[in-house]
C-alpha cells in the first residue's frame, strides 16, 4: 500500500463527485427544464419581430435571441451549481464517503480540491453543452459560425467556480439552505445594483441629479458596488462578445478580475476552514 501521489486522489474524488451528483434529482430536473427551454426558444429564431413598426432583420433577431438564451442558460447553470453544491459536504458525511476518503492517506486539501473540481467540471459541462446547442441552432439559422458564443460561455466558467467555492464555504458555516440563499442573494443584489448603476448613469438620471442640486456622497456606495461580487457584470462582459461588438476594452474586464479574486480569497478560506473542521 503506497502513498498516493498528489494529483490522482484529487482527480478520483472529482470523478466520484461528478458521477454522484449526476444522480441527484435537482440535476436531472434542471437539465430537463433547460432542454425544454432551448426547445421552445428554437421557434423564436424563425419569428418576425417588429420594433417601432420596423421589422427586424433575421441576423439581429438571431443575435438578440442568442444573447438572451445565453444569459438564461448561464443564470440557470449558476442556480443549478448552487443547488448541487449546498449539499455536497453533508451528503458525503451522511453517506460515509467523507470519513472513508479521509481515513486514507489523502490530505484534506486534496479532498476539498477534488470536490471543487468535480462539481465545477459538472456545472461547466452542463452549461457548455446547453450553450453549444444554442450555438449550433444560431449558426444554422445564421448560415455562419458564431465562435464568440463559445468564447462567452468559456468566460462564464469563472462564475460557476465562484458559486461552487462560495456555497461550499458557507455550507460549512451555516445550514445548507442558508448557504444557497446567501449566494443567490449575492447574485440578485449584484444584478439589481448593476441595474441601478446603469440607470444612474443614464442621461435622464444625470439630468435629475443635476437639477436637484443637493450634493450627495456616493463614495461608500460606489466602494461597496465595485467590491461586491460581480457575477452579473462578468456575465455581461462575456455576452458582449455575442452581440458582434468585439472586445469591449480592458476596463470592462474588471468584473472578471473581481470574480477571480473572490474565487481565490473564498477558496483560501474554504481550505483553511475545512482543515479545522471535525469529521463526523
Amino acid at each position, binding site marked *: *500500500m503506497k502513498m498516493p501521489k498528489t494529483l490522482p486522489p484529487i482527480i478520483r474524488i472529482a470523478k466520484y463527485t461528478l458521477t454522484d451528483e449526476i444522480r441527484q434529482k435537482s440535476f436531472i430536473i434542471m437539465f430537463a427544464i433547460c432542454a425544454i427551454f432551448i426547445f421552445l426558444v428554437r421557434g423564436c429564431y424563425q419569428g418576425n419581430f417588429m420594433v417601432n413598426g420596423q421589422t427586424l432583420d433575421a441576423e439581429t433577431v438571431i443575435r438578440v435571441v442568442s444573447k438572451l438564451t445565453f444569459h438564461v442558460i448561464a443564470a440557470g447553470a449558476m442556480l443549478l451549481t448552487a443547488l448541487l453544491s449546498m449539499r455536497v459536504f453533508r451528503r458525503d458525511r451522511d453517506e460515509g464517503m467523507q470519513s472513508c476518503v479521509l481515513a486514507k492517506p489523502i490530505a484534506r486539501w486534496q479532498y476539498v480540491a477534488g470536490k471543487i473540481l468535480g462539481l465545477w467540471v459538472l456545472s461547466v459541462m452542463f452549461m457548455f453543452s446547453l450553450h453549444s446547442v444554442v450555438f449550433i441552432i444560431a449558426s444554422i439559422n445564421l448560415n455562419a459560425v458564431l465562435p464568440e458564443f463559445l468564447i462567452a460561455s468559456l468566460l462564464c466558467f469563472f462564475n460557476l467556480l465562484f458559486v461552487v467555492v462560495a456555497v461550499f464555504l458557507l455550507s460549512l458555516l451555516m445550514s445548507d439552505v442558508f448557504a444557497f440563499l446567501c449566494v443567490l442573494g449575492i447574485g440578485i443584489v449584484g444584478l439589481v445594483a448593476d441595474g441601478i448603476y446603469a440607470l444612474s448613469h443614464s442621461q435622464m438620471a444625470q439630468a435629475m441629479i443635476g437639477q436637484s442640486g443637493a450634493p450627495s456622497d456616493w463614495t461608500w456606495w460606489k466602494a461597496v458596488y465595485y467590491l461586491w461580487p460581480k457575477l452579473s457584470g462578468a456575465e455581461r462582459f462575456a455576452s458582449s462578445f455575442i452581440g458582434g461588438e468585439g472586445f469591449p476594452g480592458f476596463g470592462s474586464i474588471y468584473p472578471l478580475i473581481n470574480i477571480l479574486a473572490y474565487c481565490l480569497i473564498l477558496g483560501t478560506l474554504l481550505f483553511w476552514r475545512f482543515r479545522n473542521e471535525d*469529521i463526523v
Partner: protein
Amino acid sequence: MTNLIFCYPYFLDITGWGTYSFCMIELNNATKRYGTLTAVDNVSFSVQAGEYFALLGPNGAGKTTIVKMLLDFARPTSGSLSVNGLPSTQAASRNAVGYLAENCHIPPYLSGWQYLQRCAELLDMSRLDAMRQCGRIVELIGMQGREHTKVSTYSKGMIQRFGLGAALIGNPKLLILDEPTASLDPIGIREIRELLESLKDQGMTIFLNSHLLSEVEKICDNAAIINQGRLLVKDAISALVKDNDTLEDVFVRLVKG
C-alpha cells in the same frame, strides 16, 4: 533485548528483526475539549506493532474521540498523537491504516463491489489490482453473490461487513475498528472474530473499540479502560483479569470507582 521498543515510521522497518517492535500508535498527553466539555483528558498510551489492543469505556468516555484524533478527523486541543511513527496530522500517517467507523455508512446507490473498488482506487491501485483485491475481500467477508446488488438493499450487518472489507483493502498494517460487531448477529460476530484473529496471526496490529467485553477478553492481548476522558488503566488482559474475575467485573469495578 527481546522486545526493544522503537517509535519510527513503519516504512523504516528493518525486516527480519522480528524481536524488535515499534509503536504503531502513541498518544502523549492527548487532550480534546469541545467548549467546556473535556472529551479526552491528558491521555497517554502506546500500542505496539502486532498487538491486538482494545480501548474500553462506557458511552461518552471519549473512545471515539481518540479514534477520531488518531485519524486526524479531530485535532487534539493539546498533546500529540502519532500513528505509524508520524504525527497523526500528516496524511502519510494513515498509510497502511484501515478504518471501520462505528455506524458504517455506504452510499445507497452504489453496490458493495463499487464501494470496495472506490476504496481501492483511492489508494492509487490500478483497476486490475483493485478488481483482484475486491474479489479477495468479498470472499473474506463472506459476501459472494451479493456484491453487485445495491447497498440500499443490504441489512446493517451486510453494510458492516462491507465496511470492514473496505478497511482491509490494501493489506493495512494497522486496523482501527470502532464497534465492528455492533450490527451483527451472533453468527456474524463469531465470523468477524475469527477473521480478526486470522488477521492478527498475519501480524496486523488491531485497535479495537468495543462494548462486547466477553469478545475482547477472548481475543485481545492488551486493553485500556477510560472513563470521562481519563485513562484508568492500561495493561495486558491477563494482568487485568485475575482469579475468578471476568473483564466485565474489572471494567465495572474500575468505572464505578
